[in-house]
Protein backbone atom coordinates (compact mmCIF):
# COMPACT_ATOMS: atom_id res chain seq x y z
CA UNK A 1 0.00 0.00 0.00
CA UNK A 2 1.21 3.46 -0.70
CA UNK A 3 1.73 5.80 2.12
CA UNK A 4 0.61 9.32 1.81
CA UNK A 5 -1.31 11.93 3.59
CA UNK A 6 -4.75 10.43 3.24
CA UNK A 7 -3.39 7.18 4.64
CA UNK A 8 -2.00 8.51 7.87
CA UNK A 9 -3.97 7.74 10.95
CA UNK A 10 -5.85 10.21 13.05
CA UNK A 11 -4.89 10.93 16.62
CA UNK A 12 -8.08 9.37 17.91
CA UNK A 13 -7.30 6.09 16.23
CA UNK A 14 -3.76 6.07 17.55
CA UNK A 15 -5.04 6.72 21.03
CA UNK A 16 -7.66 4.00 20.85
CA UNK A 17 -5.18 1.46 19.49
CA UNK A 18 -2.60 2.44 22.10
CA UNK A 19 -5.07 2.23 24.96
CA UNK A 20 -6.28 -1.12 23.65
CA UNK A 21 -2.77 -2.52 23.62
CA UNK A 22 -2.12 -1.13 27.08
CA UNK A 23 -5.29 -2.81 28.30
CA UNK A 24 -3.93 -6.07 26.94
CA UNK A 25 -0.67 -5.71 28.76
CA UNK A 26 -1.26 -4.08 32.13
CA UNK A 27 -2.33 -7.32 33.82
CA UNK A 28 0.72 -8.99 32.40
CA UNK A 29 2.93 -6.34 33.94
CA UNK A 30 1.18 -7.03 37.21
CA UNK A 31 1.96 -10.72 36.88
CA UNK A 32 5.59 -9.79 36.48
CA UNK A 33 5.54 -7.51 39.50
CA UNK A 34 3.96 -10.14 41.70
CA UNK A 35 6.54 -12.70 40.70
CA UNK A 36 8.78 -10.70 43.02
CA UNK A 37 6.43 -9.98 45.88
CA UNK A 38 7.40 -10.85 49.39
CA UNK A 39 3.90 -12.12 50.15
CA UNK A 40 3.32 -15.81 50.10
CA UNK A 41 -0.30 -16.81 50.11
CA UNK A 42 -2.47 -14.01 48.90
CA UNK A 43 -1.67 -10.71 47.35
CA UNK A 44 -2.29 -7.16 48.39
CA UNK A 45 -1.76 -3.87 46.61
CA UNK A 46 0.75 -2.39 46.84
CA UNK A 47 3.06 -5.33 47.49
CA UNK A 48 4.70 -5.07 50.89
CA UNK A 49 8.17 -5.96 49.66
CA UNK A 50 10.15 -7.56 46.91
CA UNK A 51 12.27 -10.66 46.67
CA UNK A 52 13.73 -12.80 43.92
CA UNK A 53 13.61 -15.96 45.94
CA UNK A 54 10.55 -17.34 44.16
CA UNK A 55 12.63 -18.15 41.13
CA UNK A 56 14.79 -20.47 43.16
CA UNK A 57 11.75 -21.89 44.89
CA UNK A 58 10.03 -22.57 41.60
CA UNK A 59 13.17 -24.14 40.20
CA UNK A 60 13.30 -26.57 43.08
CA UNK A 61 9.70 -27.64 43.10
CA UNK A 62 9.35 -31.02 41.44
CA UNK A 63 5.59 -30.68 40.97
CA UNK A 64 6.15 -27.74 38.63
CA UNK A 65 8.56 -29.74 36.57
CA UNK A 66 6.18 -32.66 36.41
CA UNK A 67 3.29 -30.48 35.33
CA UNK A 68 5.47 -28.64 32.86
CA UNK A 69 6.76 -31.85 31.34
CA UNK A 70 3.27 -33.23 31.02
CA UNK A 71 2.03 -30.02 29.41
CA UNK A 72 4.88 -29.88 26.95
CA UNK A 73 4.34 -33.52 26.04
CA UNK A 74 0.62 -33.11 25.65
CA UNK A 75 0.94 -29.93 23.64
CA UNK A 76 3.61 -31.39 21.37
CA UNK A 77 1.73 -34.56 20.59
CA UNK A 78 -1.62 -32.82 20.26
CA UNK A 79 -0.03 -30.27 17.93
CA UNK A 80 1.62 -32.99 15.88
CA UNK A 81 -1.62 -34.89 15.41
CA UNK A 82 -3.51 -31.68 14.73
CA UNK A 83 -0.95 -30.76 12.10
CA UNK A 84 -1.54 -33.99 10.26
CA UNK A 85 -5.32 -33.93 10.53
CA UNK A 86 -5.66 -30.21 9.87
CA UNK A 87 -3.41 -30.33 6.84
CA UNK A 88 -5.22 -33.30 5.36
CA UNK A 89 -8.59 -31.67 5.83
CA UNK A 90 -7.35 -28.36 4.48
CA UNK A 91 -5.80 -29.97 1.43
CA UNK A 92 -8.97 -31.87 0.69
CA UNK A 93 -11.16 -28.81 1.12
CA UNK A 94 -8.95 -26.30 -0.65
CA UNK A 95 -7.85 -28.31 -3.65
CA UNK A 96 -10.96 -30.15 -4.61
CA UNK A 97 -14.62 -29.65 -4.87
CA UNK A 98 -16.52 -32.56 -3.51
CA UNK A 99 -19.86 -33.23 -2.06
CA UNK A 100 -19.82 -32.39 1.63
CA UNK A 101 -17.01 -29.85 1.62
CA UNK A 102 -19.16 -27.60 3.73
CA UNK A 103 -19.70 -30.36 6.23
CA UNK A 104 -15.98 -30.82 6.64
CA UNK A 105 -15.32 -27.16 7.27
CA UNK A 106 -18.18 -27.02 9.73
CA UNK A 107 -16.95 -30.11 11.54
CA UNK A 108 -13.52 -28.64 11.91
CA UNK A 109 -14.81 -25.36 13.27
CA UNK A 110 -17.28 -26.97 15.65
CA UNK A 111 -14.93 -27.84 18.52
CA UNK A 112 -13.86 -24.24 18.84
CA UNK A 113 -17.26 -22.75 18.15
CA UNK A 114 -18.84 -24.77 20.92
CA UNK A 115 -17.86 -23.75 24.43
CA UNK A 116 -14.97 -25.75 25.85
CA UNK A 117 -17.06 -27.02 28.66
CA UNK A 118 -19.38 -28.70 26.17
CA UNK A 119 -16.47 -30.37 24.46
CA UNK A 120 -15.13 -31.32 27.86
CA UNK A 121 -18.18 -32.97 29.27
CA UNK A 122 -19.06 -34.55 25.94
CA UNK A 123 -15.69 -36.26 25.84
CA UNK A 124 -15.88 -37.12 29.48
CA UNK A 125 -19.26 -38.73 29.21
CA UNK A 126 -18.11 -40.59 26.12
CA UNK A 127 -15.11 -41.88 28.06
CA UNK A 128 -17.26 -43.01 30.91
CA UNK A 129 -19.76 -44.65 28.59
CA UNK A 130 -16.98 -46.43 26.75
CA UNK A 131 -15.25 -47.34 30.00
CA UNK A 132 -12.10 -45.60 28.85
CA UNK A 133 -9.90 -44.76 31.83
CA UNK A 134 -8.37 -41.31 31.99
CA UNK A 135 -4.85 -41.24 30.75
CA UNK A 136 -2.30 -39.17 28.95
CA UNK A 137 -4.11 -40.06 25.76
CA UNK A 138 -7.49 -38.84 26.90
CA UNK A 139 -5.95 -35.39 27.40
CA UNK A 140 -4.41 -35.57 23.94
CA UNK A 141 -7.73 -36.58 22.49
CA UNK A 142 -9.42 -33.53 23.92
CA UNK A 143 -6.67 -31.11 22.96
CA UNK A 144 -6.25 -32.34 19.42
CA UNK A 145 -9.94 -31.89 18.80
CA UNK A 146 -9.77 -28.14 19.24
CA UNK A 147 -6.23 -27.73 17.91
CA UNK A 148 -7.16 -29.08 14.50
CA UNK A 149 -9.09 -25.95 13.67
CA UNK A 150 -6.21 -23.51 13.98
CA UNK A 151 -3.98 -25.63 11.82
CA UNK A 152 -6.80 -26.08 9.37
CA UNK A 153 -7.50 -22.38 9.11
CA UNK A 154 -3.89 -21.46 8.52
CA UNK A 155 -3.34 -24.25 6.05
CA UNK A 156 -6.52 -23.64 4.11
CA UNK A 157 -5.68 -19.98 3.66
CA UNK A 158 -2.24 -20.87 2.38
CA UNK A 159 -3.50 -23.61 0.11
CA UNK A 160 -5.86 -21.12 -1.46
CA UNK A 161 -2.97 -18.79 -2.08
CA UNK A 162 -0.67 -21.35 -3.66
CA UNK A 163 -1.40 -20.97 -7.31
CA UNK A 164 -2.74 -24.23 -8.71
CA UNK A 165 -0.28 -24.02 -11.55
CA UNK A 166 2.64 -24.57 -9.14
CA UNK A 167 1.57 -28.15 -8.68
CA UNK A 168 1.04 -28.58 -12.37
CA UNK A 169 4.42 -27.03 -13.03
CA UNK A 170 6.03 -29.54 -10.74
CA UNK A 171 4.31 -32.47 -12.41
CA UNK A 172 5.15 -31.00 -15.76
CA UNK A 173 8.80 -31.05 -14.76
CA UNK A 174 8.64 -34.73 -14.00
CA UNK A 175 7.72 -34.92 -10.33
CA UNK A 176 5.02 -37.43 -9.43
CA UNK A 177 2.43 -36.78 -6.75
CA UNK A 178 4.58 -37.65 -3.77
CA UNK A 179 7.61 -35.80 -5.09
CA UNK A 180 5.45 -32.78 -5.73
CA UNK A 181 4.18 -32.93 -2.17
CA UNK A 182 7.69 -33.25 -0.81
CA UNK A 183 9.36 -30.59 -2.96
CA UNK A 184 6.63 -28.05 -3.66
CA UNK A 185 3.59 -28.32 -1.45
CA UNK A 186 5.33 -28.95 1.84
CA UNK A 187 7.86 -26.11 1.55
CA UNK A 188 5.12 -23.73 0.55
CA UNK A 189 2.77 -24.53 3.38
CA UNK A 190 5.55 -24.97 5.92
CA UNK A 191 5.36 -21.50 7.38
CA UNK A 192 1.59 -21.62 7.56
CA UNK A 193 1.88 -24.91 9.39
CA UNK A 194 4.46 -23.37 11.67
CA UNK A 195 2.14 -20.50 12.51
CA UNK A 196 -0.81 -22.83 12.95
CA UNK A 197 1.26 -25.24 14.98
CA UNK A 198 2.45 -22.51 17.30
CA UNK A 199 -1.05 -21.30 17.89
CA UNK A 200 -2.20 -24.86 18.48
CA UNK A 201 0.63 -25.40 20.91
CA UNK A 202 -0.29 -22.22 22.74
CA UNK A 203 -3.93 -23.22 22.91
CA UNK A 204 -3.12 -26.65 24.26
CA UNK A 205 -0.49 -25.36 26.63
CA UNK A 206 -2.92 -22.98 28.33
CA UNK A 207 -6.08 -25.04 28.21
CA UNK A 208 -7.88 -25.64 31.50
CA UNK A 209 -11.49 -26.10 30.68
CA UNK A 210 -11.46 -29.16 28.48
CA UNK A 211 -8.49 -30.58 30.35
CA UNK A 212 -10.34 -30.51 33.65
CA UNK A 213 -12.73 -33.01 32.19
CA UNK A 214 -10.31 -35.26 30.40
CA UNK A 215 -7.27 -35.34 32.66
CA UNK A 216 -8.48 -37.47 35.52
CA UNK A 217 -5.81 -37.21 38.20
CA UNK A 218 -3.00 -35.85 36.05
CA UNK A 219 -2.06 -32.24 36.23
CA UNK A 220 -0.98 -30.25 33.26
CA UNK A 221 0.56 -26.88 33.94
CA UNK A 222 -2.73 -24.95 33.89
CA UNK A 223 -4.38 -27.54 36.12
CA UNK A 224 -1.44 -27.28 38.45
CA UNK A 225 -1.85 -23.52 38.43
CA UNK A 226 -5.53 -23.81 39.17
CA UNK A 227 -4.85 -26.01 42.19
CA UNK A 228 -2.07 -23.75 43.21
CA UNK A 229 -4.16 -20.60 42.96
CA UNK A 230 -7.11 -22.09 44.77
CA UNK A 231 -5.00 -23.63 47.50
CA UNK A 232 -1.80 -21.68 47.38
CA UNK A 233 1.30 -22.75 49.11
CA UNK A 234 3.43 -20.11 47.47
CA UNK A 235 1.33 -18.07 45.13
CA UNK A 236 4.15 -15.99 43.60
CA UNK A 237 5.46 -19.23 42.15
CA UNK A 238 2.53 -19.30 39.74
CA UNK A 239 3.49 -15.82 38.64
CA UNK A 240 7.06 -16.89 38.18
CA UNK A 241 5.93 -19.76 35.99
CA UNK A 242 3.58 -17.58 33.96
CA UNK A 243 6.28 -14.97 33.50
CA UNK A 244 8.90 -17.47 32.45
CA UNK A 245 6.51 -18.98 29.90
CA UNK A 246 5.94 -15.54 28.37
CA UNK A 247 9.64 -14.76 28.25
CA UNK A 248 10.61 -18.13 26.87
CA UNK A 249 7.99 -17.95 24.12
CA UNK A 250 8.82 -14.38 23.11
CA UNK A 251 11.54 -15.29 20.65
CA UNK A 252 9.76 -18.17 18.92
CA UNK A 253 6.71 -15.95 18.39
CA UNK A 254 8.84 -13.21 16.92
CA UNK A 255 10.66 -15.69 14.72
CA UNK A 256 7.42 -17.19 13.52
CA UNK A 257 6.15 -13.73 12.70
CA UNK A 258 9.08 -12.91 10.49
CA UNK A 259 9.02 -16.30 8.82
CA UNK A 260 5.33 -16.27 8.01
CA UNK A 261 5.44 -12.65 6.92
CA UNK A 262 8.15 -13.29 4.34
CA UNK A 263 6.34 -16.34 3.07
CA UNK A 264 3.14 -14.38 2.66
CA UNK A 265 4.89 -11.77 0.63
CA UNK A 266 6.39 -14.34 -1.69
CA UNK A 267 3.26 -16.42 -2.02
CA UNK A 268 1.33 -13.21 -2.61
CA UNK A 269 3.63 -12.11 -5.39
CA UNK A 270 3.32 -15.40 -7.20
CA UNK A 271 0.37 -13.77 -8.95
Amino acid at each position, binding site marked *: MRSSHSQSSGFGLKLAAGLGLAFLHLPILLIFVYAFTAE*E*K*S*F*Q*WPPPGFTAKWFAVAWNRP*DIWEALTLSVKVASIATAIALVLGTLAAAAVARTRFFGREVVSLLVILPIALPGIVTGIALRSAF*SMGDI*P*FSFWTIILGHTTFCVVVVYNNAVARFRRISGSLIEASMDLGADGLQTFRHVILPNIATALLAGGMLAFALSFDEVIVTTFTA*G*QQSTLPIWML*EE*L*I*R*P*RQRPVTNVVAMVVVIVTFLPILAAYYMTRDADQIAGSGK
Partner: protein
Amino acid sequence: REPLQSLGAGEGALSIVSWAGYIERGETDKNFDWVTEFEKKTGCMVSVKTAATSDEMVALMNEGGFDLVTASGDASLRLVAGKRVQPINPDLIPSWKTIDARLQNAPWHTKDGVHYGTPYVWGANVLMYNTDVFKGEAPTSWKVVFEEMHLPDGKSNKGRVQAYDGPIYVADAALYLMAHKPELGIKDPYELNEDQYKAALDLLRGQRQLVGRYWHDAMIQIDDFKNEGVAASGSWPFQVNLMKAEGAKIDSTFPEEGVTGWADTTMLHVDSEHPNCAYMWMEHSLSPKVQGDVSAWFGTVPSVPAACKGNALYGDEGCKTNGYENFDKIKFWRTPTSKCSQGECVPYHRWVSDYIGVIGGR
Protein backbone atom coordinates in the same frame (compact mmCIF):
# COMPACT_ATOMS: atom_id res chain seq x y z
CA ARG B 1 -20.46 -56.87 50.07
CA GLU B 2 -18.70 -58.43 53.05
CA PRO B 3 -16.01 -56.46 54.80
CA LEU B 4 -12.45 -57.69 54.60
CA GLN B 5 -11.78 -60.43 57.16
CA SER B 6 -8.04 -60.40 57.37
CA LEU B 7 -5.33 -58.00 56.41
CA GLY B 8 -2.98 -58.95 53.60
CA ALA B 9 0.11 -57.34 52.18
CA GLY B 10 -0.09 -53.77 50.89
CA GLU B 11 -0.82 -53.27 47.20
CA GLY B 12 1.76 -50.53 46.88
CA ALA B 13 -0.61 -47.68 46.11
CA LEU B 14 -3.50 -45.78 47.57
CA SER B 15 -5.62 -42.95 46.21
CA ILE B 16 -7.63 -40.68 48.43
CA VAL B 17 -10.26 -38.01 47.79
CA SER B 18 -9.91 -35.47 50.53
CA TRP B 19 -10.47 -31.92 51.63
CA ALA B 20 -7.59 -29.59 50.96
CA GLY B 21 -5.07 -29.71 53.77
CA TYR B 22 -6.26 -33.07 55.07
CA ILE B 23 -3.47 -35.13 53.60
CA GLU B 24 -0.14 -33.31 53.72
CA ARG B 25 3.28 -34.51 52.80
CA GLY B 26 5.30 -31.53 53.89
CA GLU B 27 5.28 -29.71 50.61
CA THR B 28 3.89 -26.54 52.05
CA ASP B 29 5.46 -26.74 55.44
CA LYS B 30 8.03 -29.38 56.20
CA ASN B 31 6.64 -29.86 59.67
CA PHE B 32 3.31 -30.98 58.42
CA ASP B 33 3.88 -34.38 56.90
CA TRP B 34 1.95 -37.48 57.77
CA VAL B 35 2.25 -39.22 54.43
CA THR B 36 5.95 -39.79 53.87
CA GLU B 37 6.31 -41.88 56.99
CA PHE B 38 3.27 -43.95 56.05
CA GLU B 39 4.64 -44.59 52.60
CA LYS B 40 7.95 -45.66 54.05
CA LYS B 41 6.30 -47.95 56.56
CA THR B 42 3.80 -49.66 54.27
CA GLY B 43 5.11 -49.17 50.77
CA CYS B 44 1.72 -47.78 49.78
CA MET B 45 2.32 -44.71 47.64
CA VAL B 46 -0.38 -42.15 48.32
CA SER B 47 -2.02 -39.95 45.68
CA VAL B 48 -4.53 -37.33 46.67
CA LYS B 49 -7.38 -35.67 44.80
CA THR B 50 -8.72 -32.67 46.63
CA ALA B 51 -12.36 -31.70 46.44
CA ALA B 52 -13.90 -28.38 47.34
CA THR B 53 -17.40 -29.44 48.33
CA SER B 54 -19.20 -32.48 49.58
CA ASP B 55 -21.11 -32.70 46.34
CA GLU B 56 -17.86 -32.89 44.46
CA MET B 57 -16.71 -35.72 46.70
CA VAL B 58 -19.83 -37.67 45.98
CA ALA B 59 -19.39 -37.07 42.27
CA LEU B 60 -15.80 -38.22 42.38
CA MET B 61 -16.67 -41.36 44.29
CA ASN B 62 -19.49 -42.09 41.86
CA GLU B 63 -17.01 -41.80 39.10
CA GLY B 64 -14.74 -44.33 40.78
CA GLY B 65 -11.08 -45.07 40.75
CA PHE B 66 -10.41 -44.04 44.34
CA ASP B 67 -9.85 -46.06 47.48
CA LEU B 68 -10.71 -43.68 50.28
CA VAL B 69 -12.63 -40.47 50.82
CA THR B 70 -12.70 -38.10 53.80
CA ALA B 71 -16.42 -37.55 53.60
CA SER B 72 -18.33 -35.07 55.75
CA GLY B 73 -21.69 -35.96 57.21
CA ASP B 74 -23.63 -34.46 54.34
CA ALA B 75 -21.89 -36.79 51.92
CA SER B 76 -21.34 -39.97 53.88
CA LEU B 77 -24.89 -41.28 53.99
CA ARG B 78 -25.39 -40.45 50.35
CA LEU B 79 -22.37 -42.57 49.58
CA VAL B 80 -23.77 -45.40 51.67
CA ALA B 81 -27.19 -45.17 50.05
CA GLY B 82 -25.61 -45.10 46.61
CA LYS B 83 -23.56 -48.16 47.51
CA ARG B 84 -20.35 -46.35 46.65
CA VAL B 85 -18.63 -47.33 49.92
CA GLN B 86 -18.30 -50.62 51.72
CA PRO B 87 -18.66 -51.56 55.39
CA ILE B 88 -15.41 -51.84 57.25
CA ASN B 89 -14.23 -54.36 59.75
CA PRO B 90 -13.15 -52.50 62.93
CA ASP B 91 -11.32 -55.58 64.09
CA LEU B 92 -8.66 -54.93 61.47
CA ILE B 93 -8.05 -51.46 62.91
CA PRO B 94 -6.34 -51.78 66.26
CA SER B 95 -6.77 -48.10 67.13
CA TRP B 96 -10.54 -48.27 66.76
CA LYS B 97 -10.80 -48.54 70.55
CA THR B 98 -9.03 -45.22 71.05
CA ILE B 99 -11.68 -43.24 69.17
CA ASP B 100 -13.67 -40.63 71.06
CA ALA B 101 -16.71 -42.41 72.44
CA ARG B 102 -18.95 -39.63 71.12
CA LEU B 103 -17.93 -40.54 67.60
CA GLN B 104 -17.68 -44.30 67.63
CA ASN B 105 -21.27 -44.86 66.64
CA ALA B 106 -22.03 -41.51 65.08
CA PRO B 107 -25.03 -41.67 62.77
CA TRP B 108 -23.12 -40.24 59.78
CA HIS B 109 -21.05 -43.35 59.38
CA THR B 110 -23.09 -46.00 61.11
CA LYS B 111 -26.12 -47.58 59.51
CA ASP B 112 -27.97 -50.42 61.18
CA GLY B 113 -25.02 -50.96 63.43
CA VAL B 114 -22.63 -51.39 60.56
CA HIS B 115 -19.65 -49.03 60.31
CA TYR B 116 -18.79 -47.45 56.98
CA GLY B 117 -15.47 -45.89 57.86
CA THR B 118 -13.26 -44.50 60.56
CA PRO B 119 -13.78 -41.02 61.98
CA TYR B 120 -11.06 -38.63 60.89
CA VAL B 121 -11.36 -35.17 62.41
CA TRP B 122 -14.17 -32.75 63.10
CA GLY B 123 -14.65 -29.05 63.44
CA ALA B 124 -17.03 -26.14 63.43
CA ASN B 125 -18.09 -23.45 61.00
CA VAL B 126 -17.03 -20.52 63.13
CA LEU B 127 -17.84 -16.87 62.71
CA MET B 128 -14.72 -15.16 61.45
CA TYR B 129 -14.50 -11.42 61.82
CA ASN B 130 -12.18 -8.51 61.38
CA THR B 131 -11.03 -7.33 64.78
CA ASP B 132 -10.55 -3.76 63.59
CA VAL B 133 -14.10 -3.48 62.41
CA PHE B 134 -15.43 -5.03 65.58
CA LYS B 135 -13.07 -3.00 67.73
CA GLY B 136 -11.70 -6.06 69.48
CA GLU B 137 -15.15 -7.10 70.66
CA ALA B 138 -16.27 -10.47 69.29
CA PRO B 139 -19.75 -10.45 67.81
CA THR B 140 -22.06 -12.59 69.81
CA SER B 141 -24.63 -13.50 67.21
CA TRP B 142 -24.85 -14.67 63.59
CA LYS B 143 -27.08 -11.65 63.20
CA VAL B 144 -24.14 -9.74 61.74
CA VAL B 145 -24.23 -11.89 58.64
CA PHE B 146 -27.98 -12.40 58.37
CA GLU B 147 -29.51 -9.01 58.97
CA GLU B 148 -28.66 -5.55 57.84
CA MET B 149 -27.15 -3.57 60.66
CA HIS B 150 -24.38 -1.19 61.54
CA LEU B 151 -21.17 -2.81 62.62
CA PRO B 152 -19.19 -1.35 65.49
CA ASP B 153 -17.10 0.73 63.07
CA GLY B 154 -20.26 2.65 62.30
CA LYS B 155 -20.77 1.44 58.77
CA SER B 156 -23.43 -0.87 57.46
CA ASN B 157 -22.62 -4.53 57.05
CA LYS B 158 -24.05 -4.38 53.56
CA GLY B 159 -21.54 -5.80 51.10
CA ARG B 160 -19.14 -6.64 53.90
CA VAL B 161 -20.26 -10.10 54.94
CA GLN B 162 -20.05 -13.43 53.22
CA ALA B 163 -21.83 -16.75 53.31
CA TYR B 164 -20.82 -20.22 52.23
CA ASP B 165 -21.45 -21.13 48.61
CA GLY B 166 -22.94 -24.55 49.25
CA PRO B 167 -26.56 -25.66 49.70
CA ILE B 168 -25.75 -27.04 53.14
CA TYR B 169 -25.61 -23.42 54.27
CA VAL B 170 -29.42 -23.47 54.45
CA ALA B 171 -28.84 -25.28 57.73
CA ASP B 172 -26.96 -22.28 59.11
CA ALA B 173 -30.00 -20.16 58.38
CA ALA B 174 -32.21 -22.73 60.05
CA LEU B 175 -29.94 -22.75 63.07
CA TYR B 176 -30.26 -18.97 63.32
CA LEU B 177 -34.03 -19.24 63.09
CA MET B 178 -34.07 -21.91 65.74
CA ALA B 179 -32.84 -19.31 68.18
CA HIS B 180 -34.67 -16.25 66.87
CA LYS B 181 -37.98 -17.65 65.69
CA PRO B 182 -38.82 -20.43 68.10
CA GLU B 183 -42.43 -20.33 66.87
CA LEU B 184 -41.26 -22.16 63.71
CA GLY B 185 -40.47 -25.15 65.86
CA ILE B 186 -37.22 -26.09 64.22
CA LYS B 187 -35.65 -28.93 66.14
CA ASP B 188 -32.89 -29.90 63.80
CA PRO B 189 -31.50 -27.63 61.07
CA TYR B 190 -31.20 -30.62 58.75
CA GLU B 191 -34.84 -31.61 59.15
CA LEU B 192 -37.06 -28.82 57.87
CA ASN B 193 -40.68 -29.01 56.90
CA GLU B 194 -42.03 -26.77 54.17
CA ASP B 195 -42.77 -23.80 56.45
CA GLN B 196 -39.49 -23.95 58.24
CA TYR B 197 -37.69 -24.33 54.97
CA LYS B 198 -39.48 -21.36 53.47
CA ALA B 199 -38.55 -19.22 56.45
CA ALA B 200 -34.93 -20.26 56.08
CA LEU B 201 -34.95 -19.39 52.40
CA ASP B 202 -36.51 -16.01 53.14
CA LEU B 203 -33.77 -15.30 55.60
CA LEU B 204 -31.20 -16.27 52.99
CA ARG B 205 -32.86 -14.05 50.41
CA GLY B 206 -32.51 -11.17 52.77
CA GLN B 207 -28.90 -12.10 53.26
CA ARG B 208 -28.33 -12.02 49.51
CA GLN B 209 -28.72 -8.24 49.74
CA LEU B 210 -25.82 -8.09 52.16
CA VAL B 211 -23.47 -10.51 50.48
CA GLY B 212 -21.34 -9.42 47.59
CA ARG B 213 -19.73 -12.72 46.84
CA TYR B 214 -20.34 -16.09 48.46
CA TRP B 215 -17.26 -17.93 49.48
CA HIS B 216 -16.58 -21.09 47.68
CA ASP B 217 -13.01 -21.72 48.34
CA ALA B 218 -10.92 -21.04 51.34
CA MET B 219 -8.16 -19.05 49.69
CA ILE B 220 -10.51 -16.77 47.82
CA GLN B 221 -12.19 -16.04 51.11
CA ILE B 222 -8.84 -15.09 52.54
CA ASP B 223 -8.25 -12.77 49.59
CA ASP B 224 -11.65 -11.25 50.12
CA PHE B 225 -10.98 -10.55 53.77
CA LYS B 226 -7.71 -8.94 52.80
CA ASN B 227 -8.63 -7.03 49.68
CA GLU B 228 -12.37 -6.65 49.56
CA GLY B 229 -12.98 -5.29 53.04
CA VAL B 230 -15.06 -8.24 54.16
CA ALA B 231 -15.74 -7.90 57.87
CA ALA B 232 -17.49 -11.09 58.91
CA SER B 233 -18.41 -14.47 57.59
CA GLY B 234 -18.99 -18.03 58.52
CA SER B 235 -15.68 -19.78 57.94
CA TRP B 236 -13.45 -22.67 58.82
CA PRO B 237 -10.83 -22.52 61.51
CA PHE B 238 -8.38 -23.19 58.70
CA GLN B 239 -8.74 -19.72 57.25
CA VAL B 240 -8.72 -18.14 60.68
CA ASN B 241 -5.48 -19.86 61.62
CA LEU B 242 -3.86 -19.04 58.33
CA MET B 243 -4.71 -15.37 58.48
CA LYS B 244 -3.78 -15.07 62.11
CA ALA B 245 -0.45 -16.64 61.31
CA GLU B 246 0.11 -13.97 58.68
CA GLY B 247 -0.68 -11.34 61.27
CA ALA B 248 -4.01 -10.26 59.81
CA LYS B 249 -6.48 -8.57 62.14
CA ILE B 250 -8.75 -11.56 62.25
CA ASP B 251 -10.36 -13.69 64.90
CA SER B 252 -13.20 -16.13 65.25
CA THR B 253 -15.94 -16.92 67.69
CA PHE B 254 -18.74 -19.37 68.48
CA PRO B 255 -21.89 -17.21 68.45
CA GLU B 256 -24.69 -17.79 70.90
CA GLU B 257 -26.94 -19.56 68.38
CA GLY B 258 -24.43 -22.37 68.10
CA VAL B 259 -22.70 -23.46 64.94
CA THR B 260 -22.86 -26.03 62.24
CA GLY B 261 -19.90 -28.23 61.72
CA TRP B 262 -18.52 -31.25 60.07
CA ALA B 263 -17.29 -34.55 61.26
CA ASP B 264 -15.41 -36.37 58.62
CA THR B 265 -15.13 -40.07 58.05
CA THR B 266 -12.52 -41.96 56.10
CA MET B 267 -14.63 -44.25 53.94
CA LEU B 268 -13.62 -47.14 51.72
CA HIS B 269 -14.77 -47.26 48.10
CA VAL B 270 -16.84 -50.30 47.22
CA ASP B 271 -14.54 -51.16 44.31
CA SER B 272 -11.31 -50.24 46.04
CA GLU B 273 -8.34 -51.78 44.31
CA HIS B 274 -6.04 -51.35 47.28
CA PRO B 275 -8.09 -52.42 50.32
CA ASN B 276 -5.13 -53.54 52.36
CA CYS B 277 -3.33 -50.25 51.96
CA ALA B 278 -6.64 -48.56 52.73
CA TYR B 279 -6.96 -50.38 56.03
CA MET B 280 -3.36 -49.52 56.83
CA TRP B 281 -4.11 -45.87 56.18
CA MET B 282 -7.22 -45.94 58.35
CA GLU B 283 -5.13 -47.33 61.17
CA HIS B 284 -2.42 -44.75 60.50
CA SER B 285 -4.94 -41.93 60.39
CA LEU B 286 -6.06 -42.73 63.91
CA SER B 287 -2.63 -42.40 65.45
CA PRO B 288 -2.46 -39.48 67.90
CA LYS B 289 0.41 -38.01 65.93
CA VAL B 290 -1.52 -37.82 62.67
CA GLN B 291 -4.69 -36.71 64.40
CA GLY B 292 -2.87 -33.95 66.21
CA ASP B 293 -0.96 -32.84 63.14
CA VAL B 294 -4.05 -32.66 60.93
CA SER B 295 -5.91 -30.80 63.58
CA ALA B 296 -3.10 -28.34 64.01
CA TRP B 297 -2.88 -27.76 60.29
CA PHE B 298 -6.57 -27.38 59.58
CA GLY B 299 -7.84 -26.17 62.91
CA THR B 300 -9.97 -29.20 63.62
CA VAL B 301 -10.60 -31.39 66.60
CA PRO B 302 -9.11 -34.89 66.61
CA SER B 303 -11.29 -37.96 66.86
CA VAL B 304 -8.78 -39.57 69.15
CA PRO B 305 -8.70 -37.80 72.53
CA ALA B 306 -5.13 -38.92 73.08
CA ALA B 307 -4.08 -36.43 70.42
CA CYS B 308 -5.15 -33.55 72.61
CA LYS B 309 -2.15 -33.99 74.81
CA GLY B 310 1.47 -33.97 73.88
CA ASN B 311 1.32 -33.14 70.18
CA ALA B 312 4.05 -30.63 69.45
CA LEU B 313 2.25 -28.92 66.61
CA TYR B 314 -1.23 -28.86 68.07
CA GLY B 315 -0.26 -27.96 71.60
CA ASP B 316 -2.20 -28.83 74.65
CA GLU B 317 -4.70 -26.03 74.16
CA GLY B 318 -5.61 -27.03 70.60
CA CYS B 319 -8.57 -29.20 71.49
CA LYS B 320 -10.06 -26.54 73.68
CA THR B 321 -9.66 -23.67 71.20
CA ASN B 322 -11.13 -25.63 68.40
CA GLY B 323 -14.21 -26.65 70.40
CA TYR B 324 -13.57 -30.07 71.88
CA GLU B 325 -15.97 -29.21 74.66
CA ASN B 326 -18.55 -27.77 72.33
CA PHE B 327 -19.27 -31.06 70.64
CA ASP B 328 -22.86 -30.98 71.73
CA LYS B 329 -23.38 -27.41 70.50
CA ILE B 330 -22.33 -28.30 66.99
CA LYS B 331 -24.94 -29.36 64.50
CA PHE B 332 -22.92 -31.62 62.28
CA TRP B 333 -23.55 -31.64 58.57
CA ARG B 334 -25.97 -34.30 57.44
CA THR B 335 -27.77 -34.84 54.19
CA PRO B 336 -31.39 -33.71 54.54
CA THR B 337 -33.82 -36.42 53.46
CA SER B 338 -37.54 -36.34 52.89
CA LYS B 339 -38.14 -38.93 55.58
CA CYS B 340 -37.40 -37.36 58.96
CA SER B 341 -38.50 -37.20 62.53
CA GLN B 342 -41.14 -34.59 61.61
CA GLY B 343 -42.52 -36.97 59.03
CA GLU B 344 -42.05 -35.12 55.75
CA CYS B 345 -39.03 -32.85 55.24
CA VAL B 346 -37.55 -30.97 52.31
CA PRO B 347 -34.95 -33.20 50.70
CA TYR B 348 -31.47 -32.17 49.73
CA HIS B 349 -32.03 -31.81 46.00
CA ARG B 350 -34.44 -28.97 46.68
CA TRP B 351 -31.81 -27.35 48.84
CA VAL B 352 -29.44 -27.53 45.89
CA SER B 353 -31.68 -25.93 43.32
CA ASP B 354 -33.22 -23.40 45.67
CA TYR B 355 -29.89 -22.23 46.99
CA ILE B 356 -28.68 -21.64 43.41
CA GLY B 357 -31.85 -19.62 42.98
CA VAL B 358 -31.24 -17.61 46.13
CA ILE B 359 -27.72 -16.73 45.08
CA GLY B 360 -29.03 -15.88 41.64
CA GLY B 361 -31.43 -13.40 43.22
CA ARG B 362 -34.63 -15.46 43.14
